């Protein structure tokens, strides 16, 4: 058989490709569930018309508080608003006992990275969507996946395993910071973003 050798070679290539592009991501990432559901769309939609910074707020010194504390939720959800199962759980498990919700944060950066929301949002005039995409209008929380080796959320690398973002906001690796800074002619030392 003339092409027998080539056939085996190709079979090997194809097996690798299948393994690498389909099986590998499944093995590399572990899916974890969020403690409770959350519908951003309801909050930001026309009915309520909330903006991002109403919950994800800045402290007085510019420090970004990130995910709001339960007390913030309780401002509105002191009692159940509606009768969904999620709402019931929110009240019973978190608001009433005053427990913080152990959210898993999609965009959590490692401890050694320093990111000032104030500098980027207030001074640099970036919008939330430029980095976080249409997260604020989603009606369901995306699946949270964690890298088994590095422990990072999958969103840091980007949903696309190739590392090439399929959406402009995808991926939050250092390359993206550097690219954005380079595009804007910012000249920084390493410590400007590393702590």
């Amino acid at each position, binding site marked *: 058989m003339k092409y027998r050798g080539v056939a085996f070679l190709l079979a090997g290539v194809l097996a690798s490709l299948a393994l690498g592009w389909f099986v590998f991501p499944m093995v590399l990432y572990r899916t974890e569930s969020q403690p409770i559901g959350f519908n951003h769309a309801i909050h930001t939609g026309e009915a309520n018309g909330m903006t991002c910074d109403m919950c994800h707020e800045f402290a007085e010194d510019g420090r970004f508080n990130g995910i709001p504390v339960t007390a913030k939720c309780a401002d509105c959800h002191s009692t159940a608003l509606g009768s969904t199962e999620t709402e019931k759980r929110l009240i019973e498990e978190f608001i009433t006992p005053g427990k913080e919700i152990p959210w898993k944060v999609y965009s959590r950066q490692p401890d050694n990275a320093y990111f*000032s929301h104030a500098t980027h949002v*207030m001074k640099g005039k970036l919008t939330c969507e430029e980095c976080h995409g249409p997260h604020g209008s989603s009606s369901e929380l995306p699946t949270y996946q964690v890298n088994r080796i590095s422990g990072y959320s999958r969103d840091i690398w980007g949903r696309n395993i190739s590392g090439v973002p399929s959406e402009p906001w995808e991926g939050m690796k250092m390359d993206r910071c550097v690219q954005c800074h380079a595009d804007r002619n910012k000249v920084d030392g390493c410590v400007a973003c*590393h702590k």
Partner: protein
Amino acid sequence: MDQGTQKKSRYGMLIDLDRCNGCGACMVACAVEHNVAPAEHKATARTGVTWLRVAPMSNGGEFPATDTIYVPMPCQQCEKDTPCVAVCPQNAVDVDPATGIVGQVPQRCLGCRYCMTACPYHARYFDWWDPQWPKGMEQALNPDVAPRMRGVVEKCNFCHARLHTARTKAAAEGRESINPADYVPACVEVCPSKAIVFGDLEDATSELAQAVKHPHVFRFLEKLGTESKVYYRSDKQWVLDKAKSLQTV
């Protein structure tokens, strides 16, 4: 920061050796600020991690004509041909063009220690051990500074985390530049005898820029031409002589 609009700074320090009495408050504050782990049992003065080291300097006289001063020795933030920057094989060290601060990125460092041999001030420290905190003490870590792992080099960066905080505050308040009062390194803040002046050398009106003009102000190993930004001052003649003669042996 934006090259065009952001004012360039050159942060520096002036340490008055006559005021320093070697109490060690700066060393402790520095270690707390930067999440340096307590010493491993076998650590010594030569293997410990002290971003700021206070070293005794003796006049060499015999008792009772002896005199000793204490020299706090943080990273000297060399400006020109920064010895550690040039030697690092993988760009883990750089001089921040916006501040003149020599930054060390332990996450990039491979632990070859070439920079340590290059630094004439011995202001760089290697993590010989895995950093270990007593149980529970990790919740008392400073959230603004990442702990380092073993096998990398670390050093003083003029409490850069405090500059982060000051910048964020400035951004939140809509100011273009930081308020100098918001950016004071830990050692400067805690010195009980107020021996350290910190500031921007670029700003000619700053207390620091004025103070370094005094004739009794010097830098260690000035002739090496590294243009370090940590200045010292002493009115004691033997200190001036010794600092300028350089040679020790």
